[in-house]
């Protein structure tokens, strides 16, 4: 999967990612970060094949997987990373500072709609607006042919405390009403390609997903 995705990245690419789709999320190489690591790792064996990749990580409110986990993994790995808050992505894209977006997925419906960490949809819309390729890296086990479209994917709603504060620190007004959906659905039409261990499915749709799953 990593090698399949790495071929899509240009040398010197600045890749934006949301949440954490690395070793910590997969018990292995990682999906979205796996693609980045593969692109960088190629250079350790063959300098000409290696790419200089830098990562821009959305901090990923409310649980901060980007700021805590993605940043930690990339520091361990020695891959350059710049941390931003979620609301800064559009500004960087508008200024031409993002070359590609790669995220993971929690579930992909049969038509290619992608459920992933809350905020992914927002990034996908921004990427389309600025003509930046938006890739989703996931193993075939994440594709659920039993669910026709993203509308059928159950979205977990988590506790209000996660939005009102973090651990012991609380900043929201007492008694305020809170919504905390943990995931959102990105329609397949916004996805440039689905990166899997079986290859890259460009512009995923129901037919393409069916063929990919064989």
């Amino acid at each position, binding site marked *: 999967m990593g090698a399949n995705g790495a071929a899509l990245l240009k040398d010197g690419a600045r890749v934006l990612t949301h949440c*954490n*789709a690395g*070793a*910590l*999320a*997969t*018990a*292995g190489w990682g*999906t979205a970060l796996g693609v980045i690591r593969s692109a960088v790792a190629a250079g350790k064996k063959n300098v000409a094949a290696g790419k200089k990749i830098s990562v821009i990580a959305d901090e990923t409110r409310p*649980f901060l*997987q980007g700021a*805590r*986990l993605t*940043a*930690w*993994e990339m520091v*361990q*790995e020695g891959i350059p990373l710049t941390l931003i808050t979620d609301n800064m992505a559009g500004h960087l894209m508008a200024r031409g500072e993002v070359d590609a977006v790669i995220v*993971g*997925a*929690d*579930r*992909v419906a049969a038509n290619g709609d992608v*459920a992933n960490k809350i905020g992914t949809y927002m990034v996908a819309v921004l990427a389309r607006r600025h003509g930046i390729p938006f890739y989703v890296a*996931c*193993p075939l*086990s*994440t*594709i*659920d042919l039993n669910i026709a479209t993203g509308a059928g*994917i*159950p*979205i*977990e709603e988590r506790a209000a405390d996660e939005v009102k504060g973090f651990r012991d620190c609380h900043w929201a007004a007492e008694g305020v009403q809170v919504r905390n959906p*943990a*995931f959102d659905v990105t329609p397949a039409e916004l996805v440039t390609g689905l990166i899997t261990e079986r290859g890259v499915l460009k512009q995923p749709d129901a037919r393409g997903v069916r063929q990919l799953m064989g």
Partner: protein
Amino acid sequence: MKIETLRWAHDRLEMIDQRILPAAFEYVSYHSAAEVAEGIRGMVVRGAPAIGVAAAYGVALEALKLSQTVEGRHSGLDLKSSGSNKLDSRLRGNDGTEDFNAGLEEGFKVLAASRPTAVNLFWALQRRFGNALPRKRSSRSRSVCWPRRMRFWPKTSASTRRWARTARPCSKTGRGC
């Protein structure tokens, strides 16, 4: 650096506590399906593929735990009872297989409910154990003894694991042999 997000340690599962990373790097230990489900819900482990792996280990832990309690209870019974009583209890279907199957099914349910959006969890549960789920009597079923054969899981051989995926209760008695 190789990060071991989850690791099997003798008779328990250990997972990096991702709630406190990177401020602290600690492993938390788990001994049952319910504990693993709580870990998934509480975000000790997150990310769809990792959750799938954790859930598979959760079922293994439950099988291990159940096989120990079922074995213990029934060997205790055997010490007190005479040979014929032992036979009677086996004929009545009281050898613990049903307890084991019910317990395992309960473990499945609690794990499957822990993170509804992540599909890999269901994928791992179905693929690894779907065929080994307790089933109703089938005329073409094979004679099995769940607790005994699964006692050393996941250290069992590949052939036993293959067998476990296709195992059915005994066709004559509708339970383990």
